């Protein structure tokens, strides 16, 4: 008798589980207040705080409390995921080509950059160094990375925004200071041959450097560097090179998805919110460089002076950058080849 009851309970449980799972696969036009933010990797802590504040902000305005879910991963991988069916309402990736790839796939309307202020850039950032406590290998500038005794940690340019920005920073560090293209190729070849681990995303690289204690210098986002050093409790420190790349992580609404799910109003409000003073303050507190001029002036103390060059100094536009450096068979493929044993 007891067994019968148990059996029945199990069957009921399984049927409900089955119903839930099957229904969970239905691409539903759900709650117009529910958003999925498909983001690049290191922005987790930032979005956590921004989302909580946005929820308050939105509830005050409309009486409805939106719920925002996050998916994080390497920027290019995330872009492909969206193209492959990951239903993000907004994408907050690491660089233009990733967001534009989604446009090319027809999911974002053309001219998306003009939809929001400052070319859809609520904040910018750059690539800096993180080194071990007291900088034992005395790494101060980009040329130090080419020294044979230096192991660099940076993510894979094929999957990570951080990875691509690091590459462009490395390249620009040579060409912006008078080096030729050949010099630059030799330099990046050297640095990548001394990179023991190429993780798929920014945070994974941070784990490799900070937790697994591999490598001498970590090339990462400024904001990630600050978080990393903070969490390391003294074992790591930041080094700002004199020059670095201006990293521009665009944000965009995924038109096809928001129109289908009916979340356009919430999604647009969400991205517009990023430009409010409240949001810009939060952004600055996480060490992302805010684009709001007033907030930037107020928080200037958080951001050391560093000469930042935009990618337009390296090539005409992003199309050329992709073709020259990151396309199949382009410079990155040529210098990394199939991996050369150190």
């Amino acid at each position, binding site marked *: 008798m007891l067994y019968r009851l148990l059996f029945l309970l199990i069957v009921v*449980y*399984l049927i409900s*589980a*089955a119903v*839930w*799972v*099957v229904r*969970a*696969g*239905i*691409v*539903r036009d759900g709650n117009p207040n529910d958003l*999925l933010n498909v983001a690049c990797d290191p922005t*987790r*802590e930032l979005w956590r705080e921004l989302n909580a504040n946005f929820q308050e902000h939105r509830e005050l305005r409309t009486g409805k409390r939106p719920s925002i*879910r*996050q*998916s*994080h*991963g390497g920027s290019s991988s995330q872009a492909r*995921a969206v*193209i*492959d*069916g*990951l*239903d993000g309402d907004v994408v907050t990736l690491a660089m233009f080509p990733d967001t534009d790839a989604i446009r090319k796939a027809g999911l974002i309307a053309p001219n998306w950059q003009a939809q929001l202020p400052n070319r859809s850039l609520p904040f910018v950032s750059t690539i800096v160094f993180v080194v071990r406590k007291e900088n034992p290998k005395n790494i101060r500038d980009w040329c130090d990375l080419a020294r044979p005794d230096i192991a660099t940690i940076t993510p894979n340019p094929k999957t990570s925004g951080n990875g691509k920005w690091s590459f462009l920073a490395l390249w620009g560090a040579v060409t912006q200071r008078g080096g030729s293209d050949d010099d630059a190729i030799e330099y990046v070849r050297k640095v990548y041959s001394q990179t023991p681990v190429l993780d798929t995303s920014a*945070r*994974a690289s941070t*784990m490799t450097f900070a937790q697994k204690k591999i490598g001498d210098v970590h090339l990462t986002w400024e904001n990630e560097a600050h*978080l990393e050093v903070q*969490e390391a409790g003294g074992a790591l420190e930041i080094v700002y090179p004199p020059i670095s790349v201006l990293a521009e992580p665009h944000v965009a609404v995924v038109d096809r998805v928001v129109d289908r799910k009916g979340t356009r109003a919430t999604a647009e409000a969400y991205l517009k919110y990023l430009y409010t003073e409240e949001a810009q303050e939060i952004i600055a507190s996480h060490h992302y460089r805010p684009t709001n001029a007033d907030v930037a002036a107020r928080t200037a103390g958080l951001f050391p002076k560093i000469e930042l060059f935009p990618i337009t100094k390296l090539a005409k536009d992003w199309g050329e950058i992709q073709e020259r450096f990151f396309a199949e068979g382009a410079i990155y493929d040529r210098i990394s080849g199939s991996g050369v044993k150190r």
Partner: protein
Amino acid sequence: MRIDAEFVGAASVSDRSNTPSLADARGSVRSRTDPAWVRYSLIGFTVGTVALLILVPLISVFAQAFSKGMLAYWKSLADDSDTMHSMFLTLMVAPLAVAINTVFGIAAAYSIARFRFPGRAILTTLIDLPFSVSPVVAGLIFVLLFGLQSTAGTWLKAHGYQIIFAPPGLVLATAFVTFPFVARELIPVMESQGADEEIAARSMGANGWQMFWRITVPNIKWGLIYGVILCNARAMGEFGAIFVVSGRIGGATDTMPLRVEKLIQEYNQQAAFAVASVLTLLSLITLLLKVVVERKLRAEKTRPGD
């Protein structure tokens, strides 16, 4: 079984019962006693190995989970909606995968143990295939099959359904990885039991389903439970395959093992170990059930069809 039977001379057939006779016991003492130093060093080695390999890690999981105290432990589990959801998701996905594998396992064991047919050996080998496939490969194949760059995936998406990056994909990947567990357990059990009881039931007029529910299933129940337990343990702990097919959407497609990894990456070691401790607790319960069932199973296996 005895290779050197000729060398030894008289080879009596032991009665496979587990209770030794008094003569056996005396003989055991005399001829099977190893020197004390051998005994103690082997015992010491065994205890040491198990302690180092297994016990210390187990204790460490709980130590690190509770490293900030009971309240912090509870909060890291109950106050975090993503963690709660991951527990819910694991409890939805794993039992479902186990259930469908159980149905299959019974069907497979019945066909293979009770009948002979051409290709039987090949079938048995194929059933074992997922056992040796790497979980990442397991995830990859479903992405290839149901992702948006496949025909199946595009068709489904156009009709409003999604398998990859959603719970159905998780169930499929988990079912694949744990595919052979129940079948592998049941086949030897059913083979050793023989078909006599079932044939007897048929000859007394029972129809197919009556025979199945009243004779077949009760006879294999302990083997079945054993297989289900093993299957479930593996299903709940699956990491690699789920990592590939889930899209890693916090609060939607993160199962508990994935949640552990995410918490580590977010510098929250204590919370990661808290979730790990829940998984560990579940696996220890699994082991307890396993021990209980094993005893019943041994009785079931050696019973020659009653």
